[in-house]
């Protein structure tokens, strides 16, 4: 996905790139350890790829042999990533750190970007936070896991919700925050009514 020959997802499962445009990395300064095949881009780093744009303050890359592919990248400080999938859906992500990993194990391609440090992803109208947030670039899935309660928080953009509906707000007597409570466990078979006053029918009338 990220950088052409060095970084493209090389898989038939999901063609990440149909474009033949090159990937361009610009920065003010760069250090190349040609013995270790390691590069560090510094200051105003920008990656322009057919699938995504990324900016950050510093980025390190393990350079491959000729004709190979970069399999590890680390972007640091003020990381901003914008991508468009094959359906045209945009994703906007920000974080302190982003790690790109690519490998093929037993014929299976693994390609991920992991965001940590104030990570946020805007996926369509939704904002997601978590620690870390992981993009699976092969199947386009996004996973997140909070360090404490293993959950993600998804916010829907208020503006788009208001603009896209004329329906009145649903009335409810439930206290705030209870709508998504899980159902209590029960040993009753499906359809069994429990905890109901035996003197009360389903229509609400009381029998004598």
């Amino acid at each position, binding site marked *: 996905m990220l950088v052409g020959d060095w970084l493209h997802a090389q898989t038939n499962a999901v063609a990440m790139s149909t474009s033949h445009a090159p990937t361009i990395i610009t920065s003010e300064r*760069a250090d190349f350890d040609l013995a270790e095949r390691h590069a560090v881009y510094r200051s105003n780093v920008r990656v322009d790829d057919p699938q995504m744009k990324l900016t950050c303050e510093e980025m390190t890359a393990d350079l491959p042999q000729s004709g190979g592919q970069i399999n590890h990248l680390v972007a640091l400080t003020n990381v901003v990533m914008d991508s468009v999938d094959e359906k045209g859906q945009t994703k906007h992500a920000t974080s302190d750190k982003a790690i790109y990993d690519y490998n093929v194990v037993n014929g299976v391609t693994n390609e991920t970007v992991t965001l940590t440090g104030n990570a946020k992803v805007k996926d369509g109208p939704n904002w997601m936070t978590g620690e870390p947030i992981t993009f699976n670039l092969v199947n386009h899935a996004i996973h997140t896991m909070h360090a404490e309660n293993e959950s993600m928080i998804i916010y829907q953009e208020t503006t788009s919700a208001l603009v896209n509906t004329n329906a009145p707000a649903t009335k409810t007597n439930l206290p705030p925050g209870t709508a998504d409570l899980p159902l209590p466990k029960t040993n009753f078979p499906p359809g069994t009514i429990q905890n109901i006053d035996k003197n009360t029918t389903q229509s609400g009338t009381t029998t004598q």
Partner: protein
Amino acid sequence: MKKMLNNAGVILSAVVALGFFTGGVCAQPATTGHANDFSSVEYFKPPHQMLMASRLSGVEAQPQGQLLLIKQLKLETFDTNGVPGLIVKAPNCVYDVVHGVANSPGHVRLETADGGSHVEGDGFLWRQTDHFLTISNNVQTVIEPGPKKKTGL
């Protein structure tokens, strides 16, 4: 793959117009003059001591003390199979023969041997002893997309 660099020193060789080079470690320029087809080679450590790790060459070199003013610099790196890896080119640079350091405020271009990717920028410093290149301004890396590989998925 980690390359084992030869720390024994820089072995210089050149086809010299005025004969100011000698073979061996850190050859010193004997007189001011002019050299053509300059090259400086560094070898791997044993057991690959017969194989070149890198070669720094120039179309023209003019000595100034322990420095050489090189025109049309070309720096090549190789792996232990002798396969070319990366090529660095610069219109001109100053090469410190004793310390194996080249630098220039001018343009520099780094490209893979297969031509698939390249890096350009302005101003550079090259340390031959540890193969370390710094490009100090306006760095741009261009990577052409390669053919897709089949993964069986």
